[in-house]
C-alpha cells in the first residue's frame, strides 16, 4: 500500500526526467491523422466512383464446380466474357432471398437489352439437401427466367462459400417439427467482371438502389471493356 505522498512523487517524477509526454502524444495524434487520411484517400481512389464496395487490388474469382437448375455442370469460365452477379441463399428462405432475387431481377430488367446478354445473375444455394436442381427450376424463373440457380455437393458449395468469404449455418429452432430448419447465411452480392476478377461487393441493404447498380454494371461493361 502506498501513501498519497508516494503516489504524488511517482506521478511527477517522469515529467522531470524524460521528454515531455504531451509533445509525444501530439506527434502520435498527428501521425495517426495523416495515416488515416492517406488510407482514406487510397480507399476513395480504389473505389473509382463505384456504388458497390470495390476490391483493391481486384481478386481472381474462384471458379466453382456446381450444377445449374437443368442439372448441367456450371462454371464461371463457361460464361465467356460475361459479367457475373451472384449471391448465396436457399429457397426456403422467407424474406432475405426473395427480396434479394427481386432486387437482382429488377436490376437485370433495367439493363439495356444489348447489355443483358453480357450479364449473368446467379443464385447459389447453401441448402443442397433441399435445393435439388428441379426445386431451383421451379423457384428461380419466378423472379426472372434469366437468373440461373446453382446447387451441388456440400463440398463444392462449401468451397465456393469459403472462397468468397461468405458463411452459412443450419439453424433449428425449438418447437420446429423434424426436418424443418432455416439457414442463416451472409447476404452479400458479388460482381465478377468478364476477366474473372472479383471486383465489387454489395451489402444486402444496397441492392434496392437499382439505378446505381445498373450504372456500376454499365461502367464495368463499357468503360473498361468489362
Amino acid at each position, binding site marked *: 500500500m502506498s501513501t498519497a505522498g508516494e503516489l504524488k512523487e511517482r506521478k511527477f517524477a517522469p515529467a522531470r526526467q524524460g521528454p515531455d509526454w504531451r509533445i509525444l502524444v501530439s506527434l502520435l495524434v498527428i501521425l495517426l491523422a495523416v495515416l488515416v487520411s492517406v488510407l482514406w484517400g487510397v480507399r476513395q481512389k480504389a473505389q473509382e466512383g463505384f456504388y458497390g464496395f470495390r476490391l483493391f487490388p481486384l481478386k481472381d474469382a474462384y471458379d466453382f464446380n456446381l450444377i445449374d437448375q437443368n442439372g448441367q455442370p456450371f462454371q464461371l469460365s463457361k460464361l465467356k466474357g460475361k459479367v457475373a452477379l451472384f449471391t448465396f441463399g436457399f*429457397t*426456403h*428462405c*422467407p*424474406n*432475405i432471398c*426473395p*427480396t434479394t432475387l*427481386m432486387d437482382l431481377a*429488377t436490376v437485370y430488367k433495367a439493363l439495356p437489352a444489348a447489355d443483358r446478354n453480357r450479364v449473368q445473375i446467379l443464385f447459389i444455394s447453401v441448402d443442397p439437401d433441399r435445393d435439388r436442381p428441379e*426445386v431451383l427450376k*421451379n*423457384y428461380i424463373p*419466378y*423472379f426472372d427466367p434469366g437468373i440461373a440457380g446453382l446447387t451441388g455437393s456440400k463440398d463444392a458449395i462449401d468451397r465456393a462459400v469459403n472462397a468468397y468469404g461468405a*458463411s*452459412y*449455418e443450419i*439453424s433449428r*429452432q425449438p*418447437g420446429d417439427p423434424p426436418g*424443418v430448419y*432455416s*439457414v*442463416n*447465411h*451472409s*447476404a*452479400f452480392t458479388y460482381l465478377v467482371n468478364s476477366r474473372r476478377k472479383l471486383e465489387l461487393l454489395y*451489402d*444486402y*441493404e444496397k441492392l434496392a438502389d437499382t439505378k446505381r447498380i445498373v450504372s456500376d454494371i454499365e461502367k464495368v461493361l463499357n468503360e473498361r471493356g468489362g
Partner: protein
Amino acid sequence: MKKLLIAFAILLLRPLALSAQELPLKVEGAWMQAVPDVSETTAVYMTLTNLGKTPLDLAGARSAVAERIEPMITKKDRSGMMGMERVPSLPIPAGGKLVLQPAGNHLMLMQLRQHPRPGEKVKITLLINPGAQELDLELPVSKQAIE
C-alpha cells in the same frame, strides 16, 4: 363486482375480431411477399403505429394461406451472416411504431397452404396482446415492396 363484470365483458368480446377503429392501431404499407409454388414459406410486412397510451404486442397471426404465422426478428452478426429468430411477440410501444420489413422484423408464414399470386389479396388476422385481441386485415400480394 365491477371488475368481474369487465372481465366477463372481455371474455365475451374475445372471440370477436376487433376492427382497426377499436384497437388504437394504424396499419400502413401492408403486403405479402409473393413466392413460387415450390416455396413453403413467405413473409408479411407492414408498419403498425400504436396511437394509444398502452404498449401493445404483436403475438402472431393466422390466415387460411399458411399453417403457422409467427413473429420473427432478423439478426446480423459481425461477419455479415444474417439469420432469423422466432420471438414470442414484437412490441408496439405506446405512441410508437413497429416496422415489419424485409431484412428486419417480420411475420413469417410457414407451411403455406396456398400460393396467392401478385395482385391478389389475402386475409390475415393479427393477434395483439394484451387481451388476445384480433385485427382483421386484407393485404395485397406482391413480388416487391409496395411503395
